[in-house]
């Protein structure tokens, strides 16, 4: 365990927490998942190929942990979707409008089937390439592309009808 590698892992913590949050949908389970992922990664460092991309490797570990440990758990009820334990006071406040929009965004994300949600997140939030996403999820690139297309289209429909019903009426 060289310090260089540990430092590198540290730089990906925000990304890991973001992805874990989107998978678990509450802060405590998400941070447990991040903890397990980092511990597993450090424990298995010797099995990692030298040239393997660290970020994609970490996401792969997290995804596998999520599948093996957490998938069977029932999804949390929708009321827990937004993490109200969060302390907003210390930071500059986003506008109320932004916040409502984000809330709707997360609700829509919640309604996606898990296989589409993971692809949308890895590609459009975590900026993984399609090939990296395929390798993290252990599926062919073609599957990634079709899940991405279906996931995005659904998100667009959910948010169009949920967020801007008035626009729909105008159409």
């Amino acid at each position, binding site marked *: 365990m060289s310090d260089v590698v540990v*430092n590198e892992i540290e730089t990906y*913590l925000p990304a890991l*927490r973001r992805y874990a949050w989107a998978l678990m949908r509450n802060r405590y389970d998400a941070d447990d998942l991040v903890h397990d992922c980092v511990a597993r990664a450090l424990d298995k460092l010797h099995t990692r190929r030298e040239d393997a991309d660290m970020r994609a490797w970490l996401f792969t570990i997290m995804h596998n942990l999520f599948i093996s440990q957490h998938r069977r758990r029932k999804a949390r009820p929708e009321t827990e979707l937004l993490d109200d334990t969060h302390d907003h006071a210390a930071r500059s406040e986003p506008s109320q409008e932004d916040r409502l929009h984000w809330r709707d*965004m*997360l609700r829509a*994300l919640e309604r996606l089937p898990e296989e589409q949600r993971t692809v949308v997140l890895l590609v*459009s*939030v975590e900026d993984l390439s399609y090939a990296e996403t395929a390798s993290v999820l252990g599926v062919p690139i073609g599957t990634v592309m079709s899940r991405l297309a279906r996931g995005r289209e659904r998100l667009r429909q959910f948010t169009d009808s949920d967020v801007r019903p008035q626009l729909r009426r105008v159409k």
Partner: protein
Amino acid sequence: MDPISEDDLHAFVDDQLTAERREHVVRHLREHPDDSARVSSYIALRGALRAALAEQVDGPIPSRLNPHVIAHQIRSRRTIWSAAAAVVLAFGLGGGGGWYLRASITPKPSSMAMLLQEAVANHIVYTADRRRPTELGPDQRDDLARWVSNRMNRQVAPPDLSSAGYKYLGGRLAATNSGPAGMFMYQNEHNIRLTIFVRPVGIDGNAPIEHVGSGVLDGFGWVSKGIGYSVVAAVPSDELQKVAEEVQRLVEPRA
């Protein structure tokens, strides 16, 4: 040139196209307002998703997720297990093993080194015990102090180390070649366990605090009015030294 596919539109949104292909997509979008509207809303979704998730995990990262902390825990767990395995192996091999053990852990039998060896041996055995690391728990602190003090014929008590970030877990009476000893166990917020090991050293004097490496775990020891104290934990020695000095300050008899 291949016709523009659905995949191309997504790769455009995710900026994963070659410059050349990108130009073709831009031209296609100019000519197909429906696709153009769809791509625009995908790009907007992408931005909104990022903002919404960033908001959720904003704020300081809990220290338990710090990879340096986790790496340290893994290292100390490995050290303890390999040490415990070595002890088991040595005892398990009977006579020959006993000889080997004596040869390997008693290179110079100064009383301080001896105390630290006993402290480390007990530390390894009891801190690794997840179910019952202590004989008397934190709610029986006074009972333990009385028990250990009676057996050693000296007044000792587990100090409160909460100021140093260690919570008291309890303790036990321990056996050594030099008679009964007391062991007090603590744990910090990273679940790293620390033990204070204490017994009379047979001379009624004082010895200043010193760092003793046992080859497995390091510790600090000193003698105060004929009672030998040691502090052992799998933490960096500068950190351990601060705790040891705090223990020394707390157990020092008031003048």
